[in-house]
């Protein structure tokens, strides 16, 4: 864990993972003795598919449960929270971006962003103003058009806007460029980095695409964390 150990351990605003252990049903395991991401730091989680990159993101977001260990975000162990508490914490502190965007059909671009802000606990008036500002920063021309009417590039921007509009302390992007060509992938990753920087959030991006490495100063191979061989 040479990369992880070089990080600043005193920063409680970032992400602190210790003694994390996750067992897949298939028998694979993911073990992370220690991993720290500082507030505002950008990290690329590299590794082949199936190495556990997405699982780690899901664990950080609290949508999967570890069998042991802690994940502290702003000092709060998200794995120690249960039920609605954990969901609320996630809504307020973590923004997520997906490969297929996971925007909600039937809603406008503005509504997709407002929905995230509503679930993060913002009042109706704040929802609107924040969503509008986030979308305009990301150059969404028509925030009132239904999401399915937007181009893929615009949809990606809406997905980014949704992740950062609530000013989370952590942004997690799971293979955000996997369905884009290399040129667009670079544009997208810069967009995500810029949005995270503007929000002051720690950013963790997973990708199996080697061409993204040059966009990051800190790159962590997931295989570095954990033995990927099965324990049978």
């Amino acid at each position: 864990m040479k990369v992880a150990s070089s990080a600043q351990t005193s920063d409680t605003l970032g992400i602190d993972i210790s003694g994390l252990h996750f067992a897949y049903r298939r028998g694979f395991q993911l073990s992370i003795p220690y991993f720290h991401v500082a507030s505002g730091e950008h990290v690329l989680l590299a590794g082949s598919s199936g190495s556990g990159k997405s699982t780690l993101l899901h664990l950080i977001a609290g949508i999967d449960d570890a069998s042991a260990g802690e994940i502290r975000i702003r000092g709060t162990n998200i794995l120690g929270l249960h039920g609605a508490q954990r969901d609320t914490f996630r809504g307020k502190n973590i923004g997520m971006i997906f490969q297929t965007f996971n925007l909600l059909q039937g809603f406008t671009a503005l509504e997709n962003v407002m929905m995230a802000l509503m679930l993060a606990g913002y009042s109706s008036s704040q929802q609107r103003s924040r969503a509008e500002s986030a979308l305009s920063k990301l150059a969404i021309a028509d925030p009132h058009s239904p999401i399915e009417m937007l181009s893929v590039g615009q949809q990606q921007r809406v997905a980014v806007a949704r992740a950062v509009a609530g000013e989370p302390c952590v942004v997690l992007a799971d293979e955000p460029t996997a369905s884009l060509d290399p040129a667009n992938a670079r544009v997208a990753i810069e967009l995500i980095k810029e949005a995270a920087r503007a929000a002051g959030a720690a950013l963790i991006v997973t990708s199996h695409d080697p061409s993204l490495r040059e966009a990051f100063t800190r790159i962590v191979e997931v295989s570095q964390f954990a033995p990927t061989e099965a324990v049978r």
Partner: protein
Amino acid sequence: MNDMIIVLRSLRVRLLASSVTVAMVAIAVALLLVLMSLREAASQAFRRGTGNIHLLVSADASPLVGVLNGLFYANAPANPIAWGKYEEIKNSFPWQWAIPTQLGDSFRGSPVMATTPEFLSNFEPVSGQPFQYASGKSFAEDFQVVAGSQAASEHGLSVGQKIVFSHGTGGSREGGHQHADHPYEVVGILKPTGSAHDRALFTNLQSTWIIHAEDRRENAARAEHEAEAEEDHAGHDHAHEHEHVEAADLTDADKLMTGILLRLPTRPGSDASASIAAQFDRLRRDMAITVAQPAQQIGRLMAIVGDIDWLFLAMAVVVLVSSAISIMLAMVASMELRRRQVAVLRVLGASAWRVFALAITESTLIGLIGAILGAFLAIGGSAIASTILAQRIGITVAGTIDPRSAALVMAGAVVLAALAGIIPAIKSYRTPVARHLRPIA
């Protein structure tokens, strides 16, 4: 943005499925409401019309038939009551009134009741609500007629018009033998009473007796001529002469009637008399007549009909339950799409209970919209059904829906719809978030 918008959008995204399920609930609610309103209205319509009479004497086969024929104009009574019997009954007790009636003629399918002016002045089709005139007045002389509101509007009758009755009742509008020699003058039009009497026309007994006396004498004369003609082949010209009958010519044999409406004296403000049972028992011993307590007979009829319409109500409830099941099926069928939405909402910070509540809200909303549409549908449907009933059966059924039972049915639909949402809600609640965020393979 709020949860209700999320639910509404979810319904809109699945517009076709949502519309179909809403329509199913609406139809079920409407069906239930119409059946309930008709059930209530039909029994009301039957309770109206017997009015303030205590006993009905007829020569029909049973008391119920007597009431249906004599007060609801179901058929022309087949058996007459003789004048002597009327006099005997009338004088046997100090009745408040004893009104003779005779049914048998019709005007374009509407029954004609021959009676005395007391029928229009003393008999009240609904207790406490005597007949009122929309125009004109009661008949006072021979060959004058007063039309019930519905009969008047159906045939476009107005005061001063001359009309001709035909012998016999029944469906055919121009059927039967026409009493063309004796046109009647319309002298009054009644206001609606909400009873079967609205369909009828009213005239005096003497006019009817005269017409039928002439008919009988003409028939007798014709038969005589035909008998003579067979004997006498020389072929004398026996011109058919019209038999003219005056009131004074009427014999007791001509003075037939089909019903006697009786009311016992009561204390002012009371509709009951302690002697009804005693008089009923006394008259019942006379084997030549049938005596009925109309209100009781109608109660008995409603008890019989009641069993059948419970069956209809049960069917409507089944339809309502199946519409709730269809809500559940539609929601479960769309579960794959729904799970993706649920997973996204969960990632954005919605709790499992919140997505549970969203599913329940969605199914409840389908129930609510369906119930409201169903109520409107029922109001329209009742109006149509009551029109058809009035035309076909002739009972005036006001298609009003009791607000309390309507509220109960609508609430029932909403509750059932909410229950229908439970299984989809549980599935939403249990949706594994991480798995449903992955790209669709």
